[in-house]
């Protein structure tokens, strides 16, 4: 376990810096947007009332003081009151979080379950029509815009074939299309990477030895190859998990899925800035925590990573 502590410390430091940067950008952007007070009050509010609210929110204080106060609030999870929901923003956002988790985890599981077998088959049967078809599809999945994949799925699967519902969150049937849409990019990336990782291992000397010993082809693939191809697959998989959060904004909007991504977009339309601020910040925290965990697992799995 030597080297694990410094590795941990450096990753922790990087995560902290990223979080501080995000909160600072959020602060700057919010201040650039001008005075939020007129949004909070009726248009005919007297000047004295405007000054009172401004003082109440601390907006009459010098910017550096506001900045420090803001950081303090952020640390305590206090993002102010939602204008639309008339509740603390943090509580509102927490309420929408389970739906996003449900969608994200399903998309991720689906991506893994589909992509890894496809990648392995493509590698083992390389340069066959199966391989070409799978990798062609993966290329499309990697470069097609998420929102249009969603629209196409709705058009074909829901409207033309009538197989699955178009939107909402009621049963597992509502989950299939959003999860496929959100997972498409990860699926494509994982399939391509699995293929190249498996190909790499299949060329190794110990695989030739195994074959020379008379180990069956099935055993060569499952036992000798997959285990060694796992490290790069685990890495890209972890990274993909973080990226899913960004895609959730689009997917949830397309399928009217009641998670924090859709909440963020609707709050922008409602000019409900405390909610926007809170979702952006909370997603950043989630993303950074997930990446930190991935790094950690990776560092535990592969001692070489710690050294670099």
């Amino acid at each position, binding site marked *: 376990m030597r080297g694990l502590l410094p590795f941990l410390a450096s990753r922790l430091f990087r995560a902290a810096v990223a979080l501080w940067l995000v909160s600072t950008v959020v602060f700057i952007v919010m201040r650039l947007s001008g005075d939020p007070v007129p949004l909070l009050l009726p248009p005919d509010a007297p000047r004295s009332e405007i000054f009172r609210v401004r003082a109440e929110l601390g907006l009459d204080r010098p910017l550096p003081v506001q900045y420090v106060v803001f950081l303090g609030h952020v640390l305590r999870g206090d993002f102010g009151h939602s204008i639309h929901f008339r509740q603390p923003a943090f509580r509102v956002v927490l309420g929408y979080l389970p739906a996003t988790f449900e969608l994200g985890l399903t998309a991720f599981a689906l991506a893994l379950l589909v992509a890894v077998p496809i990648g392995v088959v493509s590698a083992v049967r390389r340069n066959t029509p199966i391989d070409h078809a799978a990798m062609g599809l993966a290329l499309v999945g990697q470069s097609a815009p998420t929102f249009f994949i969603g629209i*196409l799925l709705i058009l074909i699967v829901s409207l033309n074939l009538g197989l699955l519902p178009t939107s909402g969150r009621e049963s597992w049937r509502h989950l299939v299309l959003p999860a496929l849409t959100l997972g498409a990019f990860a699926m494509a990336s994982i399939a391509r990477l699995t293929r190249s990782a498996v190909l790499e291992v299949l060329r190794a000397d110990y695989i030739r030895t195994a074959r020379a010993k008379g180990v069956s082809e099935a055993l060569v693939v499952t036992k000798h190859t997959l285990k060694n191809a796992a490290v790069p697959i685990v890495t890209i998989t972890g990274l993909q998990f973080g990226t899913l959060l960004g895609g959730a904004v689009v997917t949830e909007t397309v399928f009217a899925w009641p998670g924090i991504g859709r909440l963020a977009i609707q709050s922008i339309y409602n000019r409900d800035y405390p909610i926007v601020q809170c979702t952006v910040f909370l997603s950043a925290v989630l993303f950074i925590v997930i990446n930190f965990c991935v790094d950690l697992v990776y560092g535990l799995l592969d001692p070489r990573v710690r050294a670099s």
Partner: protein
Amino acid sequence: MALGGGVFVVVLIVTALAAPAIAPYDPIRQSLRARLAAPTLAAADGKAHLLGTDHLGRDVLSRTIYGARVSLLVGFAAVVVGGLVGATLGLLAGFRGGWADSVIMTLADAQLAFPFILLAIGIIAVLGPSFSTLIVVIGLSGWVTYARVLRSQVLVLRSYEFVDAIHALGGSVARVIARHILPNVLSSLVVIATLELARAIVLEATLSFLGLGVQPPTPSWGGMVHEGREYLDSAWWISTAPGIVLMLTSIIVSRTGDWLRDLLDPTLRGE
């Protein structure tokens, strides 16, 4: 493949430039008599609409053609912004070293450690959507790769004696950059810029789809897919036509980038 990609991009650029000449109709002219007309040679207004019309009776083909203007304008401008910022910061980090290098590279790490679309949404939500905001935000989302490539190139070159010799002879930093660094990284920059173009076009379309990008009535592919969403059931062509063009553009441009990378600079693989 590569030739096909190049031809496609050229056709797209020509289409965008010559949109007024190519498009059969004015892209924002409404025709209430010909609302939601399916692809036809003779709609209710007596005109041909090869890709149908939308909910306001506007010609989908004309709008898709004009949409190329927005995509390419924002795409290329964002690549220029990202390239300039990234190149400057990369050169600075490489030449200065020390704290400037640490700050710039920490910033780069932090930005990579975050799904930028969330931040973009936050910024545009507050500043309000406009062409310039869109270009700056999308451009800034892509500076990191340029900066990393230039920085590492500077670090490699700085260790060579001939660079010391140039300095000793009174040659300026600008000369080292122009004569020795840029020629070395040019092919990498072309590859990155191509891949970034695909990314910028998709990001612009995504933001426009979310209502945070180009505002109506200006036709943009993402915005058109958004407008057609409510009519998927009855008028599927409104969303599908611009969507398919967008998807093709994204796939072909990024494939061209991949191909350029394999051709010019295999070391970039995996970036």
